[in-house]
């Protein structure tokens, strides 16, 4: 009976998640026309390409920087919202969560237009402060900066909401006790807030690390990997190699490189979530 109820779920996962995952490993060992088994030569081919190493580096820089700033911004904003009188919190929370609600493909189009080389509204505004036109998407450094900026804009609200929920669960008595002992605001954060939120910070950060590392939409729409492949992530490069250049085995191979990092993050999340479940 119970098995029957879960059967659709099991079938779905087996057919469309597990099977493709293993099929991907099989595909990665074929040649471009997918008729011959070539062992690991796709992997060794990638190791010899500079673009591959650039993608590896850029994916790591992108994910780590973006997650760090998302976490930091989320933490700061959550604190400010938490400071407000309870009545006004709802309104601010509602406004600050808007970036997370808009489908990323749609909001990235707005950013693309804000970054437009000749009509950029940012450059228009900056020109009043005497700051020259910035090549937001045309220059390697600025393009890398821009994709991270858009990702932080999109993802910070998620951290904000999670931290806000966590902040509300910290008992007020702890802060009162600390205030009596003469703790300043920094000591309160360091000795009370952070330890109390440790678990939720860990889960949110690891979760965001997975999503950010596997990001596709933002980079694809904003730069398509350019200029000179310098903003490609694993996902966008796999798309370009596997679908656009129709070298499916090589594309599968590229996307498989995400697995180790995702697996490590997933194991830690699972540990923390189970721990949280046992605490409750």
């Amino acid at each position: 009976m119970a098995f029957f109820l879960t059967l659709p779920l099991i079938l779905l996962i087996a057919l469309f998640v597990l099977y493709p995952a293993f099929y991907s490993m099989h595909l990665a060992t074929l040649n471009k026309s997918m008729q011959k088994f070539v062992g690991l030569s796709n992997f060794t081919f990638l190791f010899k390409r500079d673009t591959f190493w650039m993608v590896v580096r850029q994916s790591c820089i992108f994910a780590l920087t973006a997650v760090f700033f998302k976490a930091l911004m989320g933490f700061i904003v959550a604190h400010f919202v938490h400071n407000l009188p309870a009545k006004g919190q709802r309104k601010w929370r509602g406004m600050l969560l808007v970036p997370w609600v808009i489908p990323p493909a749609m909001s990235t189009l707005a950013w693309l237009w804000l970054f437009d080389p000749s009509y950029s509204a940012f450059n228009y505004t900056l020109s009043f402060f005497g700051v020259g036109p910035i090549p937001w998407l045309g220059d390697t450094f600025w393009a890398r900066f821009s994709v991270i900026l858009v990702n932080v804009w999109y993802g910070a609200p998620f951290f904000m909401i999670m931290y806000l929920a966590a902040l509300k669960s910290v008992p007020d008595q702890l802060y009162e006790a600390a205030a009596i002992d003469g703790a300043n605001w920094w000591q309160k954060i360091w000795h009370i807030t952070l330890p109390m939120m440790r678990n939720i910070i860990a889960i949110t950060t690891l979760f965001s690390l997975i999503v950010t590392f596997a990001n596709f939409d933002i980079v694809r729409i904003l730069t398509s990997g350019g200029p000179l492949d310098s903003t490609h992530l694993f996902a966008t490069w796999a798309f370009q190699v596997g679908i656009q250049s129709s070298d499916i085995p090589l594309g599968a191979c590229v996307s498989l490189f995400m697995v180790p990092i995702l697996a490590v993050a997933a194991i830690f999340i699972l540990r923390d979530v189970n721990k949280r479940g046992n605490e409750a």
Partner: protein
Amino acid sequence: MSTLAIDKGGPTRKVKYRSMSRDRTWALRWSYFFLVLFAIFSLVPPIYMLITSLKSSAEISAATNPWWVFHPTLANYVELLTSNQFLRFFWNSAVVSIVVVCVTMLISIPAAFALARMKFWGSTTLATGVFLTYLVPDSLLFIPLFKMLAAVQDITGITLLNRWYVLLFIYPTLTVPFCTWIMIGYFASIPKELDEAALIDGASWLQTLTRIFIPVALPGLIAATIFAFTVSWAQFLYPLVFTTSIDQLVLPVGITTTLIKGDVFNWGQIMTGALLGAAPPLIIYAFLMDYYIAGLTAGATKG
């Protein structure tokens, strides 16, 4: 002596109290100041979408102040909402999202019910597996799925690639694990006495599910529905890979591929399309914010 001490104690306490409240006011002012900055940062792109969508192409290319509309016009909206192509994208997106929501609920509610209430062989492993599946990103599976669909198409002769209905099978992989996971949490929090009482009264499992579990866990159900809808509506990678013909595209892919043509960027229309595409999730969010947030925060907790 003792009265003197109390007299002395009075003012010091009063002064201290006043300074604390002054600190509090300043903290509040700083909070508002930074929150305004963060709110501007958050709202600039959507507001700029709206501003641009109200401009004519002539005004955009004249490069006047980008933050102001001098000659507001609804021409972009009229043009898109009367274009069969755009309505087709909207229709495809709506059909796909709504069907996916139904499929997701049909799969995840019974599964969550079984996993929350019936202990059977491998049930904990399955629950963990569901959570792990939720962590598998779309960008890991799109290449093997593409090849799988092509292979099935070759063997059976059924056209799967470049058809919108194939998304109905693929999207649930993104929505079902999360929905099942949060529904397990909501179901597990229902007191056991409730369904035991129902069983004693002679209710079948199906009746317990529909008469007790679904009504009691309705907030969770709404949160899961919102999640499933927004995920299907926003999904970009799978339709980009699996569909190419204009009449098969869903909204996000349709806007990015058809409105951006070569070097000619019709930004007024692109922004209008993007805003219309963002409207359904935004409207749902505006009315059901609390459920939306409940679903968001439930994902990281067990139950």
